[in-house]
C-alpha cells in the first residue's frame, strides 16, 4: 500500500494515563481518512504527535511525501486544531502571510498563495480587515485557509465543521472534497458520523488509546451488516412470523423489514418473498457508522470489564 504516513508502535504515556498503546496505522495516500473515537480516546494525542507538537515515548512516525524538496515535514502538513483562533488585532492579509511564512514559504510565495486562496474562497474584501471585525463563521474559513495556504500534501482537520452554519459548512465540505480531488491526503477527526459516511474513504476507530476498527469504510459497513432488508410490497404475508429461514421483523401497510436467519443470498430471498406478495422495492439495510461506532465502543467496554473481573 502506498502510504503517506506510517505510525509504528506509537506510544504515549501521561503521568497516570496511557494515551496511546503502541499504535500501528497506515494512512493511504490520497484518501480522506476518518479518525473516530469517543472523547478522551487518544485522537488529539495522536494528532499532536503527527504534527510534531509532542513527542512519542516510543515508536516512530514516518512520512513519505512526493515533494522531496521540503526538508521539514512540519512544512508539508496543514493542521486545523479543534482549539483554534486568530490574532484578533491583526489584519487578515498579514495573518495569512505570517502563517504561510511560518510554514517555510518565502515572502513572495506566501503573497502569491494568499492571493490564490483569497480568490478561491471569495474573501478578497477581507484582506485589510482585522480578525475581530469578522463574524465567527468567517473567522473559521480564514482559519481553514491558514492551514492550506502552504499547499501541504497532508491535511489534518480536527472537528472542522464545529460551530459553522449550514451554508459555510457546505462551503467547507466542497473545499475539502476539492482538495481531495487535487490529490491531498486528509485526516479528518470528528464525532459527526454523518459527515464521515459522506466524505471518508477509510476510517480508524480509536478507543482508550487502542485502534479497535480500521479499514475501508465500505468494507467495514459490509462486514457489519446484519442481513436486514427493507421491502415495499402489495399483498399479505401469512400470519406466522417465520417463513423458510426469514423472519418478518416489522410490517405495516405494505412496508416491512425482513431479517435473514441464516446466510442467505438476495435471489433466494427475493424468490421466497415473491411467492407470498408482489414486491415493489427491495433494499439491504447497511448499518450506519453511528451504530457500528456505538456497538464497537460498548463491546470494547464489556470486554475490558470481563477482563477486570
Amino acid at each position, binding site marked *: 500500500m502506498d502510504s503517506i504516513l506510517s505510525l509504528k508502535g506509537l506510544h504515549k504515556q501521561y503521568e497516570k494515563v496511557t494515551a496511546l498503546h503502541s499504535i500501528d496505522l497506515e494512512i493511504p495516500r490520497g484518501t480522506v481518512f476518518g479518525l473516530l473515537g469517543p472523547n478522551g480516546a487518544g485522537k488529539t494525542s495522536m494528532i499532536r504527535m503527527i504534527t510534531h507538537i509532542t513527542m512519542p515515548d516510543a515508536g516512530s512516525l514516518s512520512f513519505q511525501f512526493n515533494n522531496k524538496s521540503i526538508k521539514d515535514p512540519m512544512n508539508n502538513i496543514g*493542521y*486545523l486544531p479543534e*482549539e483554534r*483562533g486568530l490574532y484578533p488585532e*491583526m489584519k487578515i492579509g498579514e495573518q495569512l502571510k*505570517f*502563517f504561510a*511564512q*511560518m510554514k517555510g514559504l518565502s515572502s513572495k510565495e506566501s503573497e502569491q498563495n494568499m492571493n490564490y486562496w483569497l480568490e478561491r474562497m471569495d474573501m478578497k474584501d477581507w484582506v485589510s480587515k482585522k480578525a475581530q471585525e469578522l463574524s465567527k463563521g468567517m473567522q473559521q474559513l480564514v482559519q481553514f485557509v491558514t492551514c492550506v495556504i502552504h499547499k501541504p500534501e497532508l491535511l489534518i482537520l480536527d472537528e472542522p465543521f464545529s460551530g459553522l452554519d449550514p451554508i459555510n459548512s457546505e462551503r467547507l465540505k466542497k473545499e475539502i472534497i476539492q482538495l481531495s480531488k487535487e490529490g491531498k491526503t486528509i485526516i479528518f477527526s470528528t464525532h459527526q458520523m454523518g459527515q464521515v459516511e459522506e466524505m471518508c474513504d477509510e476510517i480508524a476507530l480509536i478507543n482508550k488509546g487502542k485502534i479497535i476498527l480500521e479499514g475501508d469504510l465500505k468494507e467495514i459497513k459490509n462486514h457489519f451488516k446484519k442481513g436486514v432488508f427493507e421491502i415495499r410490497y402489495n399483498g399479505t404475508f401469512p400470519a406466522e412470523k417465520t417463513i423458510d429461514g426469514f423472519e418478518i421483523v416489522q410490517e405495516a401497510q405494505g412496508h416491512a423489514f425482513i431479517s435473514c436467519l441464516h446466510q442467505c443470498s438476495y435471489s433466494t430471498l427475493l424468490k421466497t418473498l415473491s411467492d407470498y406478495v408482489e414486491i415493489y422495492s427491495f433494499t439491504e439495510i447497511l448499518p450506519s457508522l453511528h451504530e457500528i461506532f456505538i456497538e464497537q465502543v460498548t463491546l470494547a467496554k464489556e470486554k475490558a470489564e470481563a477482563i477486570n473481573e
Partner: protein
Amino acid sequence: MSKTFIVFKKEYLTRVKKKSFIIMTLLVPILMLLLMTLPVLMTFFKTGTTHVAVLDESGEFSEVFDNSKSLQFHAVKGNLNELKAKINEKNADYQALLYIPKFDIQYPGGFVLYSDKQIGMSVQKSIENKIQNRVETLRFINAGIDKDKVNELKVSIDLENIVLQETGEKKGNAIVSIALSQIMGFFQYFMIFFYGGLIMMAVTEEKKNRIVEIIVSSIPPFQLMLGKIYGIAAVAITQLIIWIVFISLITMFFSMFMMPFMMEQQQAMEAASSIDTQSIVDTISNIEAFNIPLMVFAFSFFFIFGYLFYSALFAGAGAVTDDSSQNQTITIPLSIPIILSLMIMVNVSEQPHSPLAIWSSIIPFCSPIIMIARLPFGVPAWQLILSMVLLVLGFMVNTWIAGKIYRIGILMYGKKINWNDIRKWLFVR
C-alpha cells in the same frame, strides 16, 4: 529565513505599529520637556498677590515687612476681633491678618497668622523668617552686640571630595552620583516590569486566543519563545533609542534657549537671596567627570540582559496561566527580587561599596538594577565583568527553564497549575 526571525518580525512590527506604543514613546519626552520647563514657565504665569494685614501691637516691626510681587503687607490699627471678622467677608481687602502682640524678648510668642484659607507653606515660612530675624536683631541690641559684625564673621565651607583612582584623581560629587544612580536604577526597574508584563501578555494572549496550537505545529516552542523575547526586546530598545535621541534634542534645545533665560532668573534670585550659583555650575561640570562611554555601554548591557533575564521567566509564567487573575499570583515570586532590588538600590546610593551593594550587584536577580545604580560611583572592573558573565549565564539558564515550562504550559487549558507540576515539567524529556 528562520522561523524565529519571522516570529521576531511579527512581534516587533505589530507592537511598534500600535497607537499606544507611538503615543507612549512620544509622550514621555514631552513630559520630560514639560517637567524641565515648568519652573521657568511658572514664573511667567505666576499671578495673584497675597495681601496681609499687619496688626503690630509691639511697635517693633514697622520696617520689617517689605513688599514683594506676591506678598503685600499693610499696616492696620484697631481691634483684633473686628479685624479678624473682616477676613471672612466677601470683598475683604486682605486674605490674612498677622497679629503681633506685645512680647517678652526672652520668651517671644503669641504671633498668629489668621487667614480665610490654609496659607501656603512659602508664605508662612517667609513671614516666620522675617519675625525671627527681627527678634534676633532686637536680642543682639539688648546684649550690646553689633549684628553687622556678626554677619561679617560668618563663613561658609565647601568640603571637596576627591576620589583616588589608579588612573589619577577624580573629583567626586555625591549629589550627582546619587541622582544619576537613582534615576537609572528606577528606570531599569520600570522597564523590567513594563516589558516583563508585556511579554507575559504576549504569551497569555496567544494561549487565550487559541492560536498557540497552530503556531507550535509550525515552529518548535523554544524557537517561538525566543522569537517573542527578542521581538519585544527590540521594541524596548527602539523605544529607548527614541527616548535618548529626543531627550538629547530637548536638552540641547533647553540649554540653547532656556539657559540664558534661566541665568537671568538666577542672577535676579541671587540678588535677592544668597544662593551660591557656583555650586550649581560645579554640579553640571561634574557630569563630565564620569566615564561616559563606559557608563553608556554598561547601562545598555545591563538594560538588555536584565530584560532578557527576566523576560524568559515572565514568558514561562505567562505560559502556565490562561486568565489574568491567575497571572497575578504567579508573578509574585518574580516580583519579589525586583522590588527587593529597588529597596537595596536606595541603600546603595548611601553606601555604594558596602558588602550588600557589592554582592547584590553581582547576583543576577538583583544585578540589572543594583549594578546600574552603582555605576556612577565607580565599580572595580572585576566586579563589573563577573556580574556581566553571571547575568548572561543566568539568562541562558532561565531560557532553558522557561523553554521547558513553555513547551507544556502553552498547551494546558483550564487546569490550575501548581509549583509541583512545574517542577515535574523541568525534568521530563
